[in-house]
C-alpha cells in the first residue's frame, strides 16, 4: 500500500465516500470510468467541468475543424452516462478554490462541495507568447470546442490565417483552416517542422508537401508582434521585419500544465502537480491525473499516458494498488493524406545505429534507431504502416538482432520466418515482384539481364535500368546478383562511393543533382536515398559544393556543412586561434597595406607574422571573437580575404617579368594580377593555385601549379595539373596562346571544367591522373566554342562569388559564429 494514502478501510465496503473530480475532460472522466469498472458502489462522484458540456474526445477537435467529424461524433460520455452512473455533473461552473483543511471545493457560482477524496484533472492551458497584440480579437488558441467555433466563424468570413507554431497542434489547425478555404501561413521558430518528433529529413518532406498543398511555411521565423487594424487583428510582424496579413491568428506554440488551483491549495508543484506512482499528490486525500501532473519529472501532452495513469489511479483508489511507471509515447500527425509517425529517442549518439530507408518515387523516409539489439526510436514519413509494430518492439524492448537486416522493410517482410539474410529474402520474392520502383523493373527482368551476362551492378544498371535512377534497390539487385551468380559474383561494385552514407559515387551524385534539378542537401539525401539521416562530415561539404557549383547565385551556401576554416574564413591553428591571410594580388603590396597589417599585428598583439610560400603575409594567433574587427581594419586598407583557408583559388604567384627582369618576355606580374582578379573567390573541388613566370627560368614555379603560365617571346605557354605538395607532379602542357586575353579565357575555361567534373577534395593533379589529359583536352576542344562557353559559365558564377566574405562578417553577418553565448562568472554562480 502506498505511503501517502492514509485512509484505510475494509476493501470494497460501500462507504459512499464522496469523490469530487475537478475537470470534466479526457483524464478526469476516464479515471471515473476505471473506478466504476472496479467498484461501482465505492464512491459518490461529483464532476466539475469548466466547459459547459459533457466530456468529449479532445483529440478529435482537429477532424471537427477540418469538417471530417461533428461534435456529436466525438462525445465520449453522454448526459445519459452521467445519470445512469449516478454521477453529478456540474458543467460550466469552474472550481475556483480548494480548501484542504475542511476538504471542500468552492465553484465560481459559490457552490460548495465537500469531499473525502479529491481528483484534480485540470489538463493544460495553451501557452500564449507574450507579444504585443496577443489579446486582440481574432487571436485564438486551439484547446477546446469554443476555440474551434471561433475558428469556424472566422473561416466563414474567409480571408487569411496565420498559425503560430509548426508542431502537431499548429499543423492540424493549419490543415483544418486550409480545408475551410482560408489562405494559411504557418510561422515556426525552429528550422524544422515538428522538430520534437521529426529530424531534418522528415521535416523537409513534410514542409515540401504542405507547401505543395498551398500553405506558406516560414521556418526559423520569430514573431515580434501581432498587428491591429480598427480593433481587430490584421497581421503578424516577424523579428526580421517581414509582415504577414491575417484575419485570424492561431497560437499553437505549446501547452502548460494547469496547476493554478493546486498551487493555490499549497500542493507540491513543479512544472506540473507532483504525484507518486499512484497519482497521489503531496496530500494523501488528493489525487491528480492527466496533463496537469508531473510524474518522475515527466509531464505528458498525449492521451496514451493518461490511460495508464487512470488505471493506476483506479487500482489504488479501490485498494488494489499497482502503480504507474511512466510512459513511452508515440506521435502521429492527423492530417489526411500525410503520414507521419515518430516514437522514442532518435538522437542518442553512443552505440546506436541508424537504419534508414528512403524511396523518392513514393516520397517515403523511414528511420529506425537500434541500440544493444533493441529498437529505441523510429521516424516514419509517407508510409507509417509499420509504426505500431515498431512502437510495440520499442515498448517491449524486444531483441531485434535476428531480424536486424529486414527490420527497416517492415513487419510483413521481417516476421514470418524472418529471413535474416537479405539474399534469402530477395530470392523468396516472386518473379513479377517489382525491384526497381523508378524504372518499373521486375525481379524476373533483373535475373534475365544477369543471366544474359550482366554480372555487375553497373552492367545491370545499364542493361535493364534497375537501380539506375534513385539507387534505393541497389541492395536488392546486389542480392540478386549473388543469388544468381553465386561464387561467380565479383561482389559489390568497385565504384568508390562518396562516403558510407550512400551507394553512389561522386559522378553519379553530380549527374543526378543536375538531371533532377535538386536544390538542397536534404533533397539530395532523400532523392538519392542516403542511408543516414543527415549525412556525415565527408558528404555534407561535398554536396554543399556540388549544389553551389550547379546553381550559381541560386543555391544558398550551407555554412554548417563547411569545414571550420571555410566557416570561419580563416585557418584554425593547433591552439584554436586563427591565422589571417589577406590577399596580395599577384604577390604585390604597398605601404598602405603593409601599414594596416603592421597595425593589426600590434593592435591584437598577434604573436607571429610570416611570409607564406604563396607570396603574401600570414598573421597568426587571432581569436575567433577578434576576427571581424581584424578584417574591418584590413578592409579599410583595401584588402580582402586571401582564401588561404578555402577549397578555392589560393594564390597567383608571379615573378617580376618584363617590367624589371632582364630576361622577362612578357608582363608576368600584370597578367598574374589580372588572373587573380578574375579568379579570386571562386569555390573549387579543392584548393587551386596559379602562377605566372616571365620566362622559362620559371621563378614562379608555374610547372607545379594547378594552372601555370610561362611567358615566351611569342606568347604564353599554358600548363595544367601541377602539384608541389604531398605528391609532386609536374604540369602537362595544355597549349600555347598569343595574347593575354586568350590566356585568361583558357584559364577560366580550365577552371570551370575542373569545377564541374572533378570529385570533391580532388586536386587538379590527381583529377588529370584519373581521367587522363586526353579527356581534359577532348572536353575543352570538343567544339570550336566550348572554351568560350566554359569561360562564360565561370564568369557568370563569379558574379556571385566575388563579394569579400570578410567584409560581410565585419558588417555583422553570422556574428553568432564569432561571439560567445555568454560568460559564466563564478560570482553569479555563488548565490
Amino acid at each position, binding site marked *: 500500500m502506498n505511503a501517502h494514502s492514509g485512509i484505510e478501510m475494509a476493501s470494497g465496503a460501500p462507504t459512499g465516500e464522496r469523490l469530487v473530480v475537478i475537470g470534466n475532460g479526457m483524464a478526469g472522466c476516464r479515471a471515473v470510468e476505471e473506478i466504476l469498472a472496479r467498484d461501482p458502489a465505492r464512491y459518490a462522484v461529483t464532476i466539475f467541468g469548466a466547459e459547459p458540456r459533457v466530456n468529449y474526445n479532445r483529440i478529435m477537435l482537429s477532424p471537427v475543424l477540418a469538417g471530417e467529424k461533428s461534435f456529436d461524433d466525438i462525445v465520449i460520455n453522454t448526459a445519459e452516462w452521467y445519470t445512469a452512473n449516478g454521477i453529478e455533473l456540474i458543467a460550466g461552473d469552474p472550481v475556483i478554490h480548494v480548501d484542504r483543511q475542511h476538504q471542500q471545493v468552492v465553484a465560481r457560482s459559490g457552490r460548495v462541495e465537500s469531499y473525502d477524496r479529491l481528483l484534480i484533472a485540470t489538463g493544460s492551458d495553451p501557452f500564449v507568447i507574450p507579444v504585443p497584440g496577443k489579446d486582440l480579437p481574432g487571436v485564438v488558441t486551439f484547446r477546446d470546442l469554443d476555440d474551434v467555433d471561433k475558428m469556424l466563424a472566422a473561416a466563414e468570413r474567409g480571408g487569411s490565417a496565420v498559425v503560430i507554431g509548426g508542431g502537431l497542434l499548429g499543423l492540424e489547425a493549419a490543415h483544418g483552416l486550409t480545408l475551410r478555404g482560408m489562405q494559411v501561413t504557418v510561422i515556426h521558430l525552429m528550422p524544422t517542422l515538428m522538430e520534437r518528433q521529426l529530424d531534418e529529413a522528415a521535416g523537409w518532406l513534410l514542409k515540401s508537401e504542405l507547401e505543395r498543398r498551398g500553405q506558406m511555411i516560414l521556418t526559423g521565423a520569430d514573431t515580434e508582434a501581432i498587428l491591429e487594424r480598427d480593433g481587430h487583428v490584421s497581421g503578424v510582424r516577424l523579428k526580421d521585419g517581414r509582415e504577414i496579413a491575417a484575419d485570424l491568428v492561431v497560437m499553437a506554440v505549446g501547452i502548460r500544465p494547469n496547476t493554478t488551483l493546486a498551487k493555490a491549495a499549497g500542493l507540491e508543484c513543479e512544472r506540473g502537480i507532483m504525484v507518486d506512482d499512484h497519482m497521489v499528490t503531496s496530500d494523501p486525500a488528493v489525487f491528480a491525473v492527466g496533463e496537469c501532473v508531473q510524474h518522475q519529472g515527466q509531464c505528458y501532452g498525449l492521451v496514451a499516458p493518461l490511460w495508464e495513469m487512470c488505471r493506476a489511479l483506479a487500482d489504488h483508489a479501490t485498494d488494489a494498488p499497482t502503480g504507474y511507471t511512466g510512459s513511452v509515447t508515440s506521435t502521429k500527425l492527423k492530417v489526411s493524406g500525410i503520414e507521419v509517425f515518430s516514437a522514442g529517442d532518435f*538522437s542518442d549518439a553512443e552505440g546506436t545505429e541508424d537504419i534508414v530507408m528512403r524511396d523518392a518515387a513514393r516520397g517515403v523516409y523511414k528511420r529506425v534507431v537500434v541500440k544493444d539489439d533493441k529498437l529505441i526510436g523510429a521516424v516514419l514519413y509517407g508510409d507509417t504502416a509499420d509504426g505500431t509494430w515498431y512502437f510495440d518492439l520499442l515498448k517491449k524492448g524486444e531483441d531485434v538482432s535476428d531480424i536486424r537486416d529486414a527490420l527497416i522493410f517492415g513487419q510483413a517482410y521481417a516476421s514470418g520466418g524472418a529471413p535474416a539474410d537479405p539474399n534469402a529474402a530477395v530470392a523468396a520474392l516472386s518473379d513479377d515482384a517489382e525491384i526497381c520502383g523508378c524504372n518499373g523493373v521486375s525481379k524476373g527482368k533483373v535475373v534475365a539481364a544477369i543471366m544474359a551476362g550482366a554480372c555487375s551492378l553497373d552492367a545491370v544498371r545499364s542493361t535493364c535500368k534497375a537501380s539506375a535512377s534513385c539507387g534505393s534497390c541497389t541492395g536488392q539487385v546486389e542480392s540478386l546478383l549473388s543469388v544468381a551468380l553465386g561464387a561467380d559474383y565479383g561482389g559489390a561494385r568497385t565504384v568508390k562511393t562518396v562516403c558510407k552514407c550512400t551507394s553512389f559515387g561522386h559522378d553519379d551524385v553530380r549527374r543526378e543533382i543536375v538531371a533532377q534539378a535538386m536544390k538542397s542537401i536534404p533533397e539530395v539525401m532523400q532523392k538519392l536515398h542516403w542511408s543516414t539521416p543527415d*549525412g556525415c*562530415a565527408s558528404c555534407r561539404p561535398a554536396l554543399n559544393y556540388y549544389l553551389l557549383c550547379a546553381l550559381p547565385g541560386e543555391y544558398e551556401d550551407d555554412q*554548417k556543412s563547411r569545414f571550420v576554416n571555410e566557416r570561419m574564413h580563416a585557418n584554425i591553428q593547433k591552439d584554436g586561434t586563427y591565422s589571417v591571410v589577406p590577399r596580395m594580388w599577384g604577390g604585390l603590396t604597398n605601404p598602405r597595406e603593409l601599414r594596416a597589417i603592421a597595425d593589426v599585428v600590434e593592435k591584437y598583439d598577434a604573436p607571429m607574422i610570416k611570409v607564406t610560400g604563396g607570396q603574401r603575409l600570414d598573421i597568426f594567433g587571432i581569436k575567433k571573437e577578434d576576427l571581424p574587427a581584424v578584417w574591418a581594419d584590413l578592409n579599410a586598407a583595401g584588402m580582402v580575404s586571401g582564401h588561404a583557408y578555402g577549397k578555392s583559388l589560393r594564390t597567383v604567384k608571379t615573378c617580376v617579368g618584363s617590367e624589371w627582369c632582364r630576361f622577362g618576355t612578357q608582363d608576368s606580374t600584370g597578367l598574374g594580377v589580372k588572373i587573380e582578379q578574375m579568379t579570386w573567390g571562386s569555390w573549387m573541388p579543392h584548393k587551386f593555385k596559379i602562377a605566372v613566370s616571365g620566362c622559362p627560368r620559371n621563378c614562379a614555379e608555374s610547372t607545379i601549379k594547378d594552372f601555370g603560365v610561362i611567358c615566351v617571346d611569342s606568347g604564353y605557354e599554358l600548363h595544367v595539373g601541377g602539384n608541389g605538395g604531398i605528391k609532386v607532379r609536374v604540369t602537362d602542357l595544355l597549349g600555347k596562346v598569343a595574347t593575354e586575353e586568350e590566356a585568361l579565357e583558357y584559364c577560366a575555361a580550365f577552371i570551370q571544367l575542373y569545377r564541374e567534373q572533378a570529385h570533391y577534395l580532388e586536386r587538379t593533379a590527381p583529377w588529370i591522373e584519373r581521367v587522363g589529359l586526353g579527356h581534359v583536352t577532348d572536353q575543352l576542344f570538343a567544339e570550336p566554342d566550348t572554351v568560350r562557353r566554359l569561360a562564360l559559365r565561370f564568369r557568370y558564377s563569379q558574379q556571385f562569388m566575388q563579394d569579400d566574405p570578410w567584409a560581410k562578417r565585419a558588417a555583422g553577418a553570422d556574428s553568432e559564429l564569432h561571439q560567445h553565448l555568454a*560568460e*559564466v562568472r*563564478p560570482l553569479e554562480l555563488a548565490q
Partner: protein
Amino acid sequence: MIGEWLDIGPVTQIAPGNARTLPVRGGEELAVFHTLDNRFYALVNRCPHKGGPLSQGIVHGGVVTCPLHNWNISLKTGEALGDDEGCVPTIPLRVDAGRIYLLREAVVRGIAA
C-alpha cells in the same frame, strides 16, 4: 530546482548543426551543441586528442567531428568513437520552455579551487 540549473538563454541562439561557446571564468570553456534533429548537448570545449575546439567541428547525428584531426566525439557521452580513445566531460543540460539550462555544479566543476 531552477536554482541548481543555470539559464543560458533561448534555444534560438544556436542554429541546428551549430555550436556556441561559453567561457567560464577561472574554468574551462564549454561548448553547447544543437544537433540537426534538434537535441542540445554541452561539453567541455576541448578535444580529448589534442585539445581541439570541438565547438568548431561539423555536427552530424549525435556526433561532432573535431576540426583539428577529425576525431569523432559523441555529444552524449563525450567519448571518442571508433578506434580513437579518450573522453571529454559532459555537462548535464535541459531545455525547458524554449530556454537552455546547464547544471550549475557541473559548470563550476572545472574552476580551480
